[in-house]
């Protein structure tokens, strides 16, 4: 009973605050991003690729400012494992591009935003030449606010939209409310903004909404971002060797689990299973589809999908999964279970490799985690599917003046400066002496830096995917090399790189599958229930959707 109506509305929403849904795995401003969900529907459905896309995509002019010491390969990020002394920093923005105008930017924010007029914002605004004011919104409930703001007649000048918030009618709203950047960026026009010109073309391709280049994309590696991370220190101590096949994993897990001492082999391994068994990527609706022998197949129709669920179910049934993981969201943070040693392996965004190491090393110098390589169903090479090469988008409203659009691009160009430049250091670390100090050649943030330089300019422009942790060169190297090894096994599916807007009527067709997966792996539903759901899906519109996608592919071609 909630006696006061004033409390009931907020309390139901605080769920959102407490369980960061998919966004949690993604946030943090780490260079590697992805999410579940994905684009669905809108008034202008379809996609743009091939010749049509070529007409509006910006030209690519690679950045030559600083060469990474681990170059990108097989769709990996580029690795920068060495710190660059202040004196050696290059300049990528030679001329202040901003006109001194004002821009209001609405952006999701995870954590506590700093005060509006802090020295970091001032320094950034001064360097760019644009007076940016921020409307930072809680990243977890961002989609609720986004829907309302887009429906009002007062939209902020610039709006950041993560891919996982492109639900329902939001894509339609984007087409209706945001400006076409083509006149400023298409082809050689982008050369006015050299850092944006160095953004990979496949990321730009994702920025095409409703037939026009509307978004500044946040480039990401196309190698899967979900990695099976394991406690290397504990593996070494116990003398375990890394599992090399699904069966091997199961038998190792049974051996490693010791419930009495509160140690379980793993957390929820569903996402790992999808990669091991070669299931089409679930990170974006369009990626669920792939051309196979002349027919479009959806991931939920494949044998691999059922095999992956069945293997995960076996793990749960063997009681090698931590009991709190069975409870899902209610069970709390999987990362805490890993760092406390209660679980030895968990599936997580690869950015945790660095995140957990940085967090734990200060007290436990022996702490070491790593990601093991995906293996195939029989222990051979895995078959992996690429994820989208950009999944966070930044738009400017249609009502913006030409000057405002140019100012916006000036902000994005500045923030897209690559590692090793003065602009990068200012954007990522702030002002030297105020926000960071150089200790033993490494930049270390001060308390003020931690509080002020914490994510505001994360989404307004980014360079090609990179991993740069000079304080943990081994981790940097490990992450990039893992991506490169996995990248060698990665295939791009038919709709890779395209931003597809599904027709409204099918937008919610597959919504229940994620829940069903969770029920199946936990043994509450049978594989046959899943098969039933798939056949229902086909008859309720799945087959029509297949035809729609087929036509799309025939008409516009894939981006590969």
């Amino acid at each position, binding site marked *: 009973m909630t006696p*006061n109506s*004033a409390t009931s509305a907020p309390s139901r*929403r605080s769920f959102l605050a407490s369980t960061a849904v998919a966004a*949690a795995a993604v946030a943090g401003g780490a260079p590697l991003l992805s999410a579940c969900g994905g684009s669905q529907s809108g008034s202008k459905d379809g996609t743009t690729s091939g010749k049509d896309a070529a007409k509006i995509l910006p030209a690519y002019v690679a950045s030559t400012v600083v060469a990474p010491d681990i170059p990108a390969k097989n769709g990996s990020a580029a690795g920068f494992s060495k710190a660059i002394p202040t004196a050696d920093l290059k300049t990528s923005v030679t001329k202040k591009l901003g006109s001194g105008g004002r821009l209001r930017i609405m952006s999701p924010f995870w954590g506590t935003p700093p*005060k509006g007029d802090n020295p970091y914002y001032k320094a950034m605004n001064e360097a760019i030449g644009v007076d940016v004011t921020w409307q930072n919104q809680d990243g977890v409930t961002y989609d*609720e606010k986004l829907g309302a703001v887009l429906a009002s007649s007062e939209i902020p000048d610039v709006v950041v939209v993560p891919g996982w918030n492109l639900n329902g009618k939001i894509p339609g709203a984007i087409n209706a409310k945001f400006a076409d950047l083509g006149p400023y960026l298409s082809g050689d026009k982008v050369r006015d903004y050299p850092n944006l010109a160095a953004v990979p073309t496949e990321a730009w391709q994702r920025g095409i909404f409703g037939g026009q280049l509307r978004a500044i994309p946040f480039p990401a590696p196309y190698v899967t971002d979900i990695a099976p991370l394991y406690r290397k220190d504990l593996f070494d101590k116990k003398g375990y060797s890394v599992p090399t096949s699904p069966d091997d994993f199961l038998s190792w897990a049974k051996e490693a689990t010791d419930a009495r001492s*509160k140690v379980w082999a793993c957390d929820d391994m569903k996402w790992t299973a999808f990669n091991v068994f070669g299931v089409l990527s679930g990170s974006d609706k369009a990626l669920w589809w792939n051309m196979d022998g002349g027919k479009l197949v959806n991931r939920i129709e494949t044998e691999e999908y059922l095999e992956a669920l069945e293997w995960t179910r076996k793990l749960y049934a063997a009681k090698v999964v931590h009991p709190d993981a069975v409870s899902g969201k209610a069970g709390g943070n999987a990362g805490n279970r890993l760092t406390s*040693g209660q679980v030895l392996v968990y599936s997580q965004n690869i950015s945790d490799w660095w995140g*957990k190491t940085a*967090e734990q090393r200060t007290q436990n110098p022996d702490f070491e985690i790593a990601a093991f390589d995906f293996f195939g169903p029989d222990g051979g090479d895995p078959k992996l599917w690429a994820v989208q090469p950009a999944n966070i988008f930044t738009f400017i409203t249609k009502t913006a003046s030409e000057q405002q659009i140019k100012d916006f691009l000036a902000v994005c160009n500045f923030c897209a400066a690559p590692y090793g430049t003065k602009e990068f250091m200012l954007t990522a670390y702030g002002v030297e002496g105020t926000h960071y100090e150089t200790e033993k050649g490494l930049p270390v943030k001060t308390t003020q830096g931690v509080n002020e330089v914490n994510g505001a300019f994360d989404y307004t422009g980014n360079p090609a995917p990179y991993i740069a942790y000079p304080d943990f060169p081994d981790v940097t190297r490990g992450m990039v090399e893992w991506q490169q090894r996995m990248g060698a096994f990665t295939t791009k599916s038919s709709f890779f790189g395209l931003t597809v807007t599904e027709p409204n009527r099918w937008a919610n067709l597959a919504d229940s599958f994620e829940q069903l997966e969770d029920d199946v792996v936990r043994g509450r539903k049978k594989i046959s229930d899943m098969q039933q759901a798939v056949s229902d899906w086909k008859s309720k519109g799945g087959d029509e959707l297949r035809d729609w996608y087929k036509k799309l592919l025939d008409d516009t071609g894939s981006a590969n």
Partner: protein
Amino acid sequence: MTAVLDKQADERPAPKKPSPWAAPPRPVWEEEPSRAGLASKGLVLGIACLAILFPLWVVIVTSLQSKKTIDEAGGLVVIPKGITFVAYQELLSGGQVQRAALVSIGVTVVGTLFSMTVSVLCAYGLSRSGSLGHRWILMTLLATMFFGAGLIPTYLLVQALGLTDTYLALILPSAVSVFNILVLRSFFMGISQELIDSARIDGAGDWRILWKIVMPLSRAVLAVIALFYAVGYWSAWFNASIYLTDQDMMPLQNVMIQLVQKQERPVGLAAQVNTGQLSSLALQMAVMVMALLPVAVLSPFVQKHFRKGMLTGAVKG
């Protein structure tokens, strides 16, 4: 009438105050409690309190632990190992929490006063059976309990009224709780009609009757409803997150939520969490402990108005 009673109470010879732990002298007509009765009463109360206090203990202990201890426990800590106040230092460092606390206090005080005024007036206005249109008005109120409006229409309305980015947006849309009005009204209607009639014969109008008779006789329920409103305003955060864009205007709950959310992510953590001295779980628990503070502040206030038999003879049985 109460004034008379209070006076009598004052005149009662009370040379020394009895200990608050001791039972006050029983009235002569009340029989001595049986031992079994007392014991079972104590047992039930004890169990109920224990069921509440044990989790509370765990929460408090966890908020005082170092990251290492919490990591070793892999979650909440039952048996403390040393004590550190890092989490609280982190919470209270920086002006943001302080500023937000002031905002919250201001909104709670102003909002509660406003809500109470509107609700008490409305409840009294509807408390006379047979008055013109009271049933229709009641239906109008009641229907709002069952039909909600979507987020978008509400947002557009608040924006159209020019309330976005003002504190009024935190008060006006949720100022009236129909539930509270109904509870108030139910208590008002329980007040002896003879008292009101006799006041009317003396020439008192409705404003005076409300002020001089109804409100003094309803102190307990007024306290309760004020508490409901205050707690509602204090713990509300959704309106702020939707209608405010200025970080400096955010109330405490929103700042707390933002702090708690740091639990999940490696970048953007405050200094202590980032350097591994502070567990995000401890921070979260510290926030929870702070959220319990209103109870400590409000409990005595409510207690004061709940004295047994305070309104002797005033209300019809």
